[in-house]
């Protein structure tokens, strides 16, 4: 009933004349906009810019790995003293991997992905006029923007950006003398991260309250599309886990600046005995991974939700096992809080604890497997329409399988002894949460681009973009498994000093060129994206013949999303190719009374009156047939 009340409130609010209240100025329309659709676009564009930046960083360090003893004068031109004599310095190499990881994990795949699609889709798919708190939503973006600027500004610091790895384990990150990047660069990293977490919390609280309180009439939780479920659970994870990282980060700031010893003990640095006593570096790892592991699900769950939706729409089939999909998302969300220890099997943590974390970790593979099988079952006997979004969703499933399976190795404490921190890990997480999540995000961009920009993206460039990126990502990450199995550690500046690693140099050259190819393919996306914003083909209201509510909203963006009353929801989001209906889709706002020929008894499980009507109608039909 509460949903009904809120909905009425929304209507009244709108009719009072939202547009008359405050003048639409340039500043409040295009900069400090409080409209969720516009904030979504801000998140997306910032996320894409950050993604390109992080991608360039990765290509820089790939050049170093492929050609460790060649010089490239253009690197000195580009990077100055970070790359003296045409070679990236060892310190700056560490900065590159650190900032590449940080930007990709937090700024692209957390804020860029959830920020964009939670903002765009939650109000439009649950049928709300805007977020629960549009002002806080705007703040969320601007905190994120500030965090991005601070993070990027660390490249302007003399000693370079943070360089202790994206996990910033102390004491390396806590002692400015341990490496140049632990000076000012690390300070900026920490400031940026605090701003970022504030942004995530404001966003997350908004997403949760919008989903819980502002659904339109008829939209009960079990009628929500899987995108909304995924984004909702993601927001819950974020709200519960990000504060723990703040705690960890704040204690680290204390250790760095105020001489405390939360994480430091028994340290002799460069021959100098340090005064720290009694702290534990492992404490930071516990705090970090208490966020860090839910974080990887914060990254992948929105991608799962977007892919589920795209797969169903373009297979023209209901998602297989909707309930199982939701329960597995819930299962993953809950379990994700008790598996963080699998990042710490070989830190010297009590071996018994390692055993426990191994059990929880392998349990989480079950809901993941269920999701994969359900996606496959969704494709089975579908009528698959290969839009670029669909291809990216298929790619997402493929990466999730490939990367997920290697997780079974790494989640096993015994195997992790030899695989920990090798290229096997790099291959694993780049496939399962890097490539899979970015493919989910790209599927979302291609699919909802018409909703965001009212124009279509070019399909053929999308195909080109997909195949080059998809093949490129496999060529980059598949061989890395074997490097890891040969004991090649990650974060090594060069493999030249080890006889046993030299044979991987040719593979490294191959990987680098595959990465450059995939990188160039992103230009096709960038061109397509920018060109289509301004000159793309104009879209129709429901270009993909999809069922969800956002496609019932008018093409032109209005404040409040729908003219007049918000549509009422009568059915779930996945009535595709329902037998007995003339079209292969039935939008959520079509009542059962209009689709008598395709109704099934199952549709009326919690609606006895409807079931009675349905039975009467079926009897009448039978009678008609008998008469004929």
């Amino acid at each position, binding site marked *: 009933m509460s949903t009904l009340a809120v909905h009425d409130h929304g209507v009244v609010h709108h009719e009072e004349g939202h547009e008359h209240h405050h003048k639409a100025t340039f500043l409040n329309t295009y900069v400090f906009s409080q409209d969720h659709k516009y904030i979504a676009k801000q998140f997306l564009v910032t996320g894409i810019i950050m993604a390109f930046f992080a991608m360039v960083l990765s290509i820089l360090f790939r050049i170093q790995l492929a050609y460790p003893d060649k010089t490239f004068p253009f690197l000195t031109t580009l990077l100055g003293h970070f790359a003296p004599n*045409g070679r990236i310095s060892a310190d700056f190499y560490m900065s590159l991997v650190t900032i590449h990881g940080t930007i990709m994990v937090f700024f692209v795949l957390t804020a860029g992905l959830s920020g964009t699609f939670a903002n765009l889709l939650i109000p439009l798919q649950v049928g709300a006029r805007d977020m629960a708190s549009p002002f806080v939503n705007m703040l969320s973006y601007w905190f994120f923007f500030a965090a991005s600027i601070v993070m990027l500004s660390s490249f302007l610091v003399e000693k370079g950006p943070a360089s202790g790895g994206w996990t910033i384990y102390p004491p390396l990150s806590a002692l400015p003398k341990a490496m140049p990047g632990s000076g000012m660069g690390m300070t900026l990293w920490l400031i940026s991260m605090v701003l970022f977490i504030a942004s995530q919390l404001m966003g997350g609280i908004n997403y949760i309250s919008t989903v819980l309180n502002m659904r339109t009439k008829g939209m009960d939780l079990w009628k929500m599309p899987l995108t909304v479920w995924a984004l909702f659970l993601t927001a819950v994870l974020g709200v519960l886990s990000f504060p723990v990282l703040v705690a960890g980060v704040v204690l680290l700031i204390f250790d760095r600046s105020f001489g405390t010893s939360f994480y430091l003990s028994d340290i002799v640095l460069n021959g100098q005995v340090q005064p720290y006593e009694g702290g534990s570096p492992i404490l930071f790892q516990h705090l970090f991974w208490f966020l860090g592991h839910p974080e990887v699900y914060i990254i992948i769950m929105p991608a799962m939700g977007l892919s589920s939706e795209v797969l169903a729409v373009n297979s023209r089939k209901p998602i297989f096992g909707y309930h199982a999909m939701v329960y597995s998302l819930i299962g993953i969300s809950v379990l994700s809080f008790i598996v963080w220890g699998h990042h710490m099997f070989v830190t010297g943590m009590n071996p018994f604890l390692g055993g426990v974390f191994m059990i929880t970790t392998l349990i989480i593979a079950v809901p993941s497997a269920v999701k994969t099988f359900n996606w*496959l079952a969704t494709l*089975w006997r579908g009528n698959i329409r290969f839009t670029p979004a669909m291809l990216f969703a298929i790619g997402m499933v493929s990466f999730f399988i490939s990367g997920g399976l290697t997780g079974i190795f790494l989640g096993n404490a015994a195997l992790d002894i030899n695989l920990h921190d090798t290229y096997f890990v790099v291959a694993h997480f780049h496939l399962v949460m890097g490539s899979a999540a970015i493919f989910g995000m790209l599927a979302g961009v291609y699919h909802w681009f018409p909703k965001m920009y009212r124009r279509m993206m070019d399909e053929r460039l999308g195909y080109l973009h997909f195949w080059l990126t998809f093949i490129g990502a496999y060529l980059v990450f598949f061989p890395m498994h074997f490097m890891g199995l040969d*004991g090649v550690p990650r974060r090594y500046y060069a493999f030249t000093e080890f006889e046993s690693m030299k044979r991987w140099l040719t593979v490294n050259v191959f990987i680098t060129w595959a990465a450059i190819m995939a990188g160039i393919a992103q230009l096709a996306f960038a061109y397509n994206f920018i060109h289509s914003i301004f000159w793309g083909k104009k879209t129709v209201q429901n270009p993909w013949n999809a069922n969800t509510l956002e496609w019932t909203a008018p093409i032109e963006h209005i404040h409040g999303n729908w003219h007049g009353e918000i549509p009422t929801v009568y059915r779930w989001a996945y009535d595709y190719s329902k037998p007995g209906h003339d079209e292969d889709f039935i939008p959520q706002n079509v009542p059962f009374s209009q689709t008598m020929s395709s109704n099934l008894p199952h549709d009326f499980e919690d609606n006895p009156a409807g079931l009675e009507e349905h039975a009467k109608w079926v009897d009448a039909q039978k009678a008609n047939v008998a008469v004929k």
Partner: protein
Amino acid sequence: MGFKQLINSKKTQAFFAAFVLFGTNQLMAQTSAEGNATAVDKGAMWTGVAYNVLLILVGAVCVGIVGKILKVYDLTQKMQGKRGINWNTIMGVCCAIFLIAGLYGASWSLIVQGGMTLPQPGSAHGGLIDSMFTTTTILTLIVFFITQICLFGFAFFYRNSAKRKAHFLPHNNTIEKIWTIIPAIVLTILVVFGFFTWQKVMNSTEQKGDLNVDVTGHQFAWEIRYPGADGKLGPVNFKLSTPNNVLGVDFKDRRSMDDQSADTLVLPVNRVVRINIHAQDVIHSVYMPHFRVQLNAVPGLPTFFRFTPTITTEEMRKKLDDPKFEYLLYCNKICGAGHWNMQRVVRVVSQAEYQSWIARQKPYLNDQLRKELHFADAATPANSVKAVSNTLALNK
């Protein structure tokens, strides 16, 4: 029209980019010619940035032209009343091609690159880990191939056709139960198997080794300390660390006196070795992949790893037919700029060889350290003389 804009904009961009980049190239050539002449020669392999940027732009223009040709073809087909290019079919076929090429590529990679991975383990517990690995690999590869074949196979077989309607299949609880329970069973097997392997490897009830060795990491090297004749390592305290006593060994304790330092980690074959792991400044990780050994070295948190080397270096060289093979210990946790080159050779030898080697190792308590600690050791006359002169100096 969009295409024309592409050409026009790309051309102007290309000229602009070429202009700017040739400019910087000139600049670069000048500065580096002044600074370092050899760098320019080496850099010649990439013929300059501008060349590559132009290459990309030419590629982009080609893509644009191909796109335009396809569009023209598509439109003429439609004008003639035929069906245009059916992208659904093309993409479906692409999926099938990718599936076949991908299966071939993955198998090639598994065989060729898989063959380049670590040789058989040189330690007793390594066999347990490797058999666990083999089991997991077989199970996951089966799932990998089946699911990928289904994914791209379905994409190919059920590609769009106007004649067909998709099969309405919202759920099937039986199937759902089957594919929840089967992974659960398989994973339970792996968990149980893995748990017991882990318990055996990290056996925490059995803590003593036949040989105790201290391995301490600092930026960017490993210090190795052997226990000496008494078989016991002396305690360390970081506050005692000095340039001559890097580890901060406490010499008030008698056990410290005969400790030895070494450059190579030499281990007797078939004896239980306990490596005590310390770090002085930041976290390092003792990684010896050939023995399937890894444990982080954490400042303030001493840890240890017990294992039994089973194959001597000589035997391994013969097995691998590589006369230069060495077991290695290297750092596997990011620790700073020198992280990538923090290695120690590990040599596994027979008991007899070990005895003769250890006898030749220097004591940790070297002459300089004795001087520093004011140890008056009668056994070494040189020291006593120095001690005397010290006293004399004080007396003045």
